[in-house]
């Protein structure tokens, strides 16, 4: 240890900003807010983005249902009962045309009593777009006649066929979306409210409150949900108006869903309430509800939203199942489950398979919510 290192001091002036200066890209990344980071991460999840766009379009359509559906909700075509789907065609006798359909000819098969429809290939009927058709009340308020697509003059347009009352299946699907899709949203709002407040209390106060909530959630989670849903919706008074029944069903759907959320909230809060900033807030005299809302909840809000998204499809399916069994929504309300209830008679379905159409949107929406929620969950923690 005899040799000493020469002592070196740089004479150059020291500028900390210059050393720590970030490139533009770095700066953009490091200074981005949490939500922006989540958005970037979410965008990388191709399937989730597609699912998100699909969901946005579906929910968007519920705002303008009346304009999208070719027929009004109540319109019945008594001449066309159980008419098969009419395909949109582009070629008439080998030549390209604007979109048209062939009119349907009706004949009763006297042997099987089956309704036989055939296309009249000689008369193409041109579809009308941005046109005036069936009269409706927009959101039940404003009268209107404007449709994006209408049946041809004097003709019919049953893209998905008609049902036993001669109602257009496609139009009913579009109207049903308004009910079926919103059921999940209201249900999840109820369950979110319950889950956050009950789980929040359990996690923050601990002790006997926590023990009680834990037991209750365990019991609720061990119950088979559907029979309880069935029993609860059977208990809704028959005298209620359809709108009341709708809200009753959504609340029932939300009532049994909160335990999962409450557990998530509780376990997060248990960890977070020991953090220094929570202690600081407490020492400064903040009330528990304030601390939970302002300091703790924002920490895991994104997770909650992701898991909520994943439980919406369960509610949509719940409503469909209940209405299908005849315990949920009842006509005149039109939802996908109500429509499927008419497909219960399997002999009828074998003759008129287009009655099963409502299955398709149900499955597509459930899948979309699953992919979207998966993407959200991955994106919810952008720092990993």
């Amino acid at each position: 240890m005899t040799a000493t290192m020469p002592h070196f001091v740089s004479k150059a002036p020291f500028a900390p900003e210059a050393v720590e200066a970030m490139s533009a890209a770095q700066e953009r990344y490091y200074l981005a807010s949490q939500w922006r980071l989540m958005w970037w991460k979410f965008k990388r999840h191709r399937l989730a983005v597609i699912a998100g766009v699909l969901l946005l379009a579906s929910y968007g359509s519920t705002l303008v249902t009346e304009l999208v559906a070719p027929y009004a909700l109540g319109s019945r075509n008594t001449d066309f009962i159980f008419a098969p789907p009419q395909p949109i065609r582009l070629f008439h006798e080998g030549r390209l045309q604007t979109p048209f359909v062939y009119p349907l000819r009706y004949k009763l098969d006297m042997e099987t009593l089956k309704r036989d429809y055939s296309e009249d290939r000689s008369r193409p009927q041109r579809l009308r777009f941005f046109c005036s058709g069936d009269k409706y009340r927009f959101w039940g308020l404003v009268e209107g006649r404007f449709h994006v697509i209408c049946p041809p003059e004097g003709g019919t347009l049953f893209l998905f066929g008609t049902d036993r009352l001669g109602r257009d299946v496609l139009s009913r699907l579009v109207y049903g979306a308004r009910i079926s899709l919103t059921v999940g949203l209201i249900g999840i709002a109820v369950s979110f409210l319950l889950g956050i407040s009950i789980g929040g209390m359990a996690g923050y106060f601990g002790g006997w409150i926590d023990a009680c909530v834990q037991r209750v959630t365990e019991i609720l989670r061990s119950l088979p949900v559907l029979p309880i849903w069935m029993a609860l919706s059977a208990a809704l008074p028959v005298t209620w108006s359809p709108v009341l029944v709708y809200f009753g069903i959504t609340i029932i759907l939300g009532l049994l869903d909160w335990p999962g959320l409450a557990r998530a909230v509780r376990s997060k809060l248990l960890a977070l309430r020991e953090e220094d900033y929570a202690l600081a807030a407490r020492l400064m005299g903040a009330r528990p509800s304030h601390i939970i809302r302002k300091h703790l909840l924002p920490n895991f809000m994104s997770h909650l939203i992701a898991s909520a998204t994943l439980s919406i499809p369960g509610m949509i399916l719940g409503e469909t199942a209940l209405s299908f069994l005849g315990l949920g929504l009842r006509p005149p309300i039109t939802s996908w489950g109500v429509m499927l209830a008419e497909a219960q008679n399997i002999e009828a379905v074998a003759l008129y398979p287009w009655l099963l159409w409502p299955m398709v949107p149900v499955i597509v929406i459930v899948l979309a919510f699953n992919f979207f929620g998966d993407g959200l969950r991955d994106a919810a923690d952008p720092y990993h």
Partner: protein
Amino acid sequence: MISFLLRRLATMVLTLLVISVLVFAIIQLPEGDYLSTYIADLEAQGESVDPAKIEALRQRYGLDRPLYEQYGVWVLGLAQGDLGYSFEHDKPVSDVVGDRLWLSLILNLITVMFVYVVSFPIGVYSATNKYSIADYGFTLVGFLGIAIPNFLLALIMLYFANVWFGTSIGGLMDPKFIDEPWSWAKLLSVLEHLWVPVLVIGLSGTAGMIRRLRANLLDELNKQYVVTGRAKGLPEGRLLRKYPLRMALNPFISDIGSLLPEIVSGSVIVSAVMSLPTTGPMLLDSLQSQDMYLAGSFLMFLALLTVVGMFLSDVLLAVLDPRIRLEGGVRR
């Protein structure tokens, strides 16, 4: 182990008690009781109702007593195997129910076994052959299984059976065995008819199980002890069997906590769609006609299925995993 068992048994009984209160509250929810609906029906048909007779009926069924007494009578009866009285069928519930409870039990039991037997090899294969063609195939089937709700699947099956074979696949046994006493031939016939509902009810559960087992096993396979074992020259099969598989098995078994309620729920609606002679269709009827004791005993029975099933899985888990047995806590 014994103290663990006792503690677990005590919580189970307590849980069942709470559930019984809940179920009783639910079946009491509809306004009025079966008799008032009955009277309204009679009056609607223009028949006169003798108030004395109604009062007698009311007393006979204990409908005039306060709620907590009614509850007490009901629960004590349940505990002794007396399921109460069905108003609609005018018979004791146990006579109305007949074989339905047993058939439900068999259906659910076989479905659970089906889920485990099918998902275990597929899950292990998918994890050990990650990103192979078969793995992608199973993932796809899994997504379909999750997305297609079981009652729609039942409807699709009924539809295709009707279109392709022109037969109905509803029912749980050959028509000639209905109302026959149990025999081997009848049991065989039940087993022959069982596979369609089992498949329909079990598909989504199987899909979920495969996904979770695959994820758990993949987590384990990435751990360092696996690398060490492989570096020491353990053959792959033995390496897999000795540690990672056993570690991944734990959550696989405890997942029954979420699987069982799902299967029981599924069996109710699928039975209603396929009109199986199990609890499903009759529960639906009893709910619609406000036959409260019938509905109540079905609800209790379904809850009993899941609660007892979870108890058994906890015991199994405790046998498998000493950590649970010794700490006494139950991991979910």
